[in-house]
């Protein structure tokens, strides 16, 4: 008897070298790895110390993204000694171990989770692990991606495998049409708000439903990207014709007969109709409003029309303490309308929301308008290719005319490992993925939202409901 299997099961089964016990541990074969400069150094040092080689160097792609400046003029030199050392060590490691590196001056450089799909490095059916939690992004292509730490990077480099424990499965069905102005960011933020920051811990999520089907591939990436903020260690969407069209002719995608053969296999990548999931969640997208975070955890989110929640309304003691702590850090009063929160910064960037469609969306909001006097607004494209394309389409000019800084690509102020750091008390409307304490700078305050909502906030100087913002062009 063959049991009906989920898409997750199929990925794990097809990549299991051997079972290691009867508690769900397997030796899992990994098809691809993406490497950055800040989580990999100690892994390479470990290989060097043990005299080990990289198992299959061609399956890894390295890129500089976390520590590099994003100043409009790109230069090879890193301004701080730590970042410079990490970048030069990455180059040395890639050279010595035979791994391809997209360095800072490469036209294909960008944030790892933007460039890997862009280059066709990620394909449906693959299993990918990388030293960055947002590796879940690749689920939008029907691949299984998950984040790992540095010790696991070393293990993967040395053996092409990981010791892996099978996750439980959660199916999230999203149905209904999104209202005008809403995006996939609002969908995933609403889901995280609904199930909590640990709501999917121990699970791989499969997203499905009419809302997902209607989204573009890039918009789907935003959802899979942020699934990790609900604790998911993987997020899937069955690949469809939109995915195949997205991948066709990408530089590293298979060509000719091989493409046709791959397509035949990729079309089979879906959960069996009678597959049983460990848990099911439903979300009605037609009822959603634009979402913003008010706290310091991604699940501390509310519709823009709401007010800052009151901890006194919460009976759970720990939850109430967390809310008090968050409001204190954020400098917000319970009961205050979210739309009255005044910002000092606006940031559009990150592996969550800095692809070309995100920039088009934001540009349609700001065209012919100007950033509020008291706001510093930045656009950091997700990759150099995105930047080039946005310039070719005239988007860059729209942003610059509106008073935005038009910058080079990198992770930038999403985690502020480079010189794009906020000061204590700064308040930023941000298209990124984490509103943790200190994430964008010690003492800095982050409100997560969609790129269009960031754009509107930049113009008005406060959190703003995109639906009431006026005409977009």
């Amino acid at each position, binding site marked *: 008897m063959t049991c009906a299997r989920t898409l997750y099961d199929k990925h794990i089964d097809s990549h299991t070298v051997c079972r290691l016990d009867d508690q769900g541990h397997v030796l899992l074969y990994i098809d691809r790895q993406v490497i950055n400069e800040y989580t990999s150094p100690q892994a390479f040092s470990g290989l060097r110390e043990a005299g080990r080689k990289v198992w299959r160097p061609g399956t890894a792609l390295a890129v500089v993204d976390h520590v590099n400046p994003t100043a409009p003029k790109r230069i090879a030199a890193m301004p701080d000694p730590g970042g410079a050392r990490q970048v030069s060590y990455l180059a040395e490691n890639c050279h010595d171990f035979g791994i391809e590196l997209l360095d800072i001056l490469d036209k294909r450089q960008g944030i790892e989770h933007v460039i890997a799909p862009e280059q066709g490095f990620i394909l449906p059916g693959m299993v990918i692990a990388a030293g960055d939690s947002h590796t879940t992004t690749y689920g939008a292509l029907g691949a299984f991606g998950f984040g790992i730490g540095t*010790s696991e990077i070393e293990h993967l480099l040395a053996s092409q495998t990981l010791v892996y424990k099978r996750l439980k499965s959660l199916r999230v069905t999203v149905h209904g049409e999104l209202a005008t102005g809403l995006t996939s960011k609002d969908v995933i933020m609403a889901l995280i708000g609904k199930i909590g920051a640990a709501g999917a811990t121990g699970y791989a999520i499969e997203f499905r439903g009419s809302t997902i089907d209607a989204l573009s591939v890039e918009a789907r990436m935003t959802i899979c990207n942020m699934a990790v903020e609900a604790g998911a260690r993987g997020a899937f969407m069955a690949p469809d014709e939109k995915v195949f069209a997205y991948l066709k002719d990408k530089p590293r995608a298979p060509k000719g007969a091989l493409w046709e053969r791959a397509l035949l296999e990729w079309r089979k990548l879906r959960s069996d109709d009678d597959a049983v999931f460990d848990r099911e969640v439903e979300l009605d997208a037609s009822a959603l409003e634009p979402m913003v975070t008010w706290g310091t955890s991604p699940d501390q989110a509310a519709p823009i029309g709401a007010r800052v929640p009151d901890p006194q309304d919460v009976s759970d003691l720990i939850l109430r303490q967390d809310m008090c702590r968050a409001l204190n850090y954020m400098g917000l009063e319970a009961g205050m309308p979210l739309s009255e929160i005044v910002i000092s910064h606006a940031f559009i960037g990150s592996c969550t929301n800095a692809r070309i469609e995100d920039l088009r969306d934001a540009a349609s909001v700001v065209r012919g308008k100007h950033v509020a006097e008291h706001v510093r607004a930045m656009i950091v494209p997700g990759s150099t290719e995105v930047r080039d394309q946005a310039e070719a389409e005239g988007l860059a000019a729209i942003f610059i005319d509106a008073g935005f800084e038009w910058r080079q690509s990198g992770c930038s102020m999403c985690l502020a490992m480079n010189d794009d750091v906020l000061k204590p008390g700064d308040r930023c409307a941000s298209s990124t993925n984490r509103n943790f304490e200190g994430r964008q700078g010690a003492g800095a305050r982050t409100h997560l939202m969609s790129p269009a909502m960031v754009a509107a906030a930049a113009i008005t100087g406060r959190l703003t409901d995109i639906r009431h913002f006026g005409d977009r062009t």
Partner: protein
Amino acid sequence: MSLQPFTLVTGKAAPMLAANIDTDVIMPKQFLKGIDRNGLDRGLFFDLRFLPSGEPNPAFILNQPAWQGASFMVVGPNFGCGSSREHAVWGLKQMGIRALIGSSFAGIFYDNCQRNGVLLISLEEAVLQRLGQTVSQPEQARISVDLQEQVIRLEDGQVIPFQVDTLRKTALLQGLDAIGSTLQRSEQIKAFEREHLQANPWLN
């Protein structure tokens, strides 16, 4: 690289029961610029542990005499969420933390701890809360964690059993080098790889 085995450890347990303590809080960004693992004890919980003046924050749990030098932390749900940065675990280890006791842990953090010989113990929420209350009393902060027997022993004689996967338990007890163990299966990996690439030639 072999790890220090974890068998029976006795020491203080510091309570830190807030939910969703993320790895940005455990190890802020300014400590991520190294190419080695050294010096991360300095960065651990930096913004909580130190005042803006640079002085230790006397209110922070690990700065209070009763919990200084703790070997364990009793933590809130979803501890270690967020970024994959293993620096968070290296910092905890360098501060002398040998095990974390909580109700749930983030997935990547869980694996990172395992790979560094730091034991993670998950307890039922109610049991955890009671343990948190116990070790919040300075005179009861000392506990023993016995991995072989899978129990936590408290000062007052209470014993709390816990579950751990056999595979992980063995690795921790023996301080096994995970890569060395896996590479003993090299032939199996090669055989799998040959078949896998034949079936999916576009992966070549």
